[in-house]
């Protein structure tokens, strides 16, 4: 009991000091293992660390990061935006809806949460401001659009969840598609309805700036290639032609080919992509290492068993316990990084799932969905901070907080729908059996 409280509270306290999450996890694991299990138990953190390097599916992480970095340097985002602007500009709120569509497509091309937020924040936001779009609405749409990234496959978060919960990453990927598209659809609907009711929130482009049908058709190849890449990568996994890791390798090569077609494949861009990938991989994998150490700590000290017994014994039935776990995740998501939540919660939740007989794949997808909401919930939301860093000076943190709330609520609505209707998550993966 006291051990459990010490282990959990010390971590939360240390995290809130702003210390890097990875090192807080490693340092505390070492400290508490030494205190509770003696010096020889310190060897455990070496195995916990090295194991991450030996986990085949984690190899997909640097490869997917590389794919995204290469695409980022290849100008794909800009050409996507130009094309989408031609097609949706006529509608009220069309630029914002187009941004959601591009974010969805980019989510299917990249594994991390921030890519779409950063690129759309740089490309689309200035124009929408120029056209007098409603500030909170567009700021929120770009921030939330980025959060589709870890939900729609490929997804580094789902890879990590798969690695920790021993689930098929392919199935998790497929499970993320429907809620991801549902979120995108609801975002777009929300913007559309809002602009129908208040046309001044998203005025259509003036007639003289609209492209001719010929131009619209001519612009299609810019969208065509990225869509091909999505089909190759996800189709390869879904069709069982290759493992997620191998698909990621092909994705990276595919991204280089697209960069080549866009005449952006040169040593300098490759070098920049490699450097960025090296840094991002270091960041993600050290977090995963920290998670491995912490997982060892909570398992061997009996903390996981204690908490899960407590959760299992709650008098609210299986559904009640599921809600409690999800609400816990949502609350943690307001303050802590989603990947860190994954590492803290999975070793504790897994035994609960087993003893209550909850479908692990379904729950882990719900869990991931709830965690991903944390990217956009105030006060601590990674995408919120990325948005702040790329937005013009006149956008305050308060504007972004205000802007993301409707989108976060929509995502929570999708979460509720997935709890009440499990096939939303399990139907697509079931074809892989």
């Amino acid at each position, binding site marked *: 009991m006291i051990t459990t409280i010490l282990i959990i509270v010390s971590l939360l306290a240390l995290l809130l000091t*702003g210390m890097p999450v990875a*090192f807080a996890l490693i340092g505390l694991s070492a400290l508490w293992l030494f205190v509770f299990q003696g010096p020889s138990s310190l060897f455990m953190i070496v195995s916990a660390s090295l194991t991450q390097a030996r986990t085949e599916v984690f190899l997909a992480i*640097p490869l997917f990061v590389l794919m995204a970095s290469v695409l980022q340097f290849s100008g794909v985002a800009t050409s996507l935006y130009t094309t989408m602007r031609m097609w949706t500009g006529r509608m009220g709120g069309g630029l914002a809806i187009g941004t959601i569509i591009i974010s969805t497509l980019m989510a299917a091309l990249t594994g991390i949460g921030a890519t779409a937020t950063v690129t759309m924040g740089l490309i689309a936001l200035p124009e929408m401001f120029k056209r007098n779009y409603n500030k909170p609405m567009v700021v929120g749409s770009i921030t939330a659009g980025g959060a589709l990234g870890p939900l729609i496959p490929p997804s580094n978060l789902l890879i990590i969840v798969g690695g920790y919960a021993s689930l098929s990453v392919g199935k998790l990927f497929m499970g993320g598609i429907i809620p991801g598209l549902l979120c995108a659809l609801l975002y777009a609907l929300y913007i559309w309805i809002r602009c129908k009711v208040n046309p001044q929130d998203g005025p259509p482009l003036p007639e003289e700036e609209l492209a001719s049908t010929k131009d619209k058709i001519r612009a299609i190849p810019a969208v065509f290639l990225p869509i091909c890449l999505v089909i190759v990568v996800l189709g390869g996994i879904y069709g069982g032609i290759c493992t997620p890791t191998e698909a990621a390798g092909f994705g990276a090569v595919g991204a280089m080919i697209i960069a080549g077609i866009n005449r952006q494949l040169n040593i300098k861009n490759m070098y920049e992509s490699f450097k960025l990938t090296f840094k991002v991989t270091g960041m993600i994998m050290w977090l995963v290492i920290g998670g491995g150490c912490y997982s060892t700590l909570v398992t061997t000290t009996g903390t996981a068993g204690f908490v899960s017994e407590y959760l299992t014994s709650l008098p609210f039935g299986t559904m009640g316990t599921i809600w409690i776990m999800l609400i816990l995740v949502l609350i943690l998501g307001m303050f802590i990084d989603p990947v860190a939540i994954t590492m803290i919660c999975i070793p504790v939740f897994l035994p609960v799932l087993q003893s209550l007989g909850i479908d692990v794949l379904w729950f882990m997808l719900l869990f991931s969905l709830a965690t991903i909401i944390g990217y956009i919930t105030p006060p*601590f939301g990674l995408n919120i901070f990325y948005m702040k860093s790329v937005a013009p000076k006149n956008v305050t943190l308060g504007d972004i907080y205000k802007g993301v709330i409707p989108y976060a609520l929509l995502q929570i609505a999708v979460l509720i729908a997935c709890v009440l209707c499990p096939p939303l998550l399990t139907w697509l993966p079931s074809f892989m059996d």
Partner: protein
Amino acid sequence: MQSYIRFMDSLTDWLGKIFCWLMLPLVLITCFEVFMRYVMRQPTIWAWDVNIQIFAVIIFLSGGYAMRHKGHITVDVFTINMAPRKKAVLSLLTSVFFFFGIIVLMVMGWEMFLMSWKVKENMPTIWAPPYYWMKLMVPLGCFLLLAQGVAEFFKDLLNVFSKSENNGGN
């Protein structure tokens, strides 16, 4: 102190500039293996073994690089509006946990490497390449991370004690 910071920052950058190129063989080997399996129907016995070794190098050597470029994720919800000097003091205090954790990982990792080296351990795979180099990555990566961590510690110290808001380096 200043010269140590300069030295470490440039060393870490150089290592990053060199080792980031490992991404290239990682991609190529992955694709080559799929090609061999599907097109040639002759999967290799070495691709996976090589790839996880490359991966281990990337993981453990990238820790210091990510630290130097402020890449590691922090939860700065309560500290984001704090004065830089206060933030540096807090960071100095919490670095105790960083140093303790990474030193433990380094020392224990070194011992694991020695045990593996002593018996010239191979991987338990068909190809069975040496395993100890991969195990060496843990203490080596931790050592570089620690060295960079000391530089960051110095930067915080300079921040606390210097009159201006100079952060001593980059």
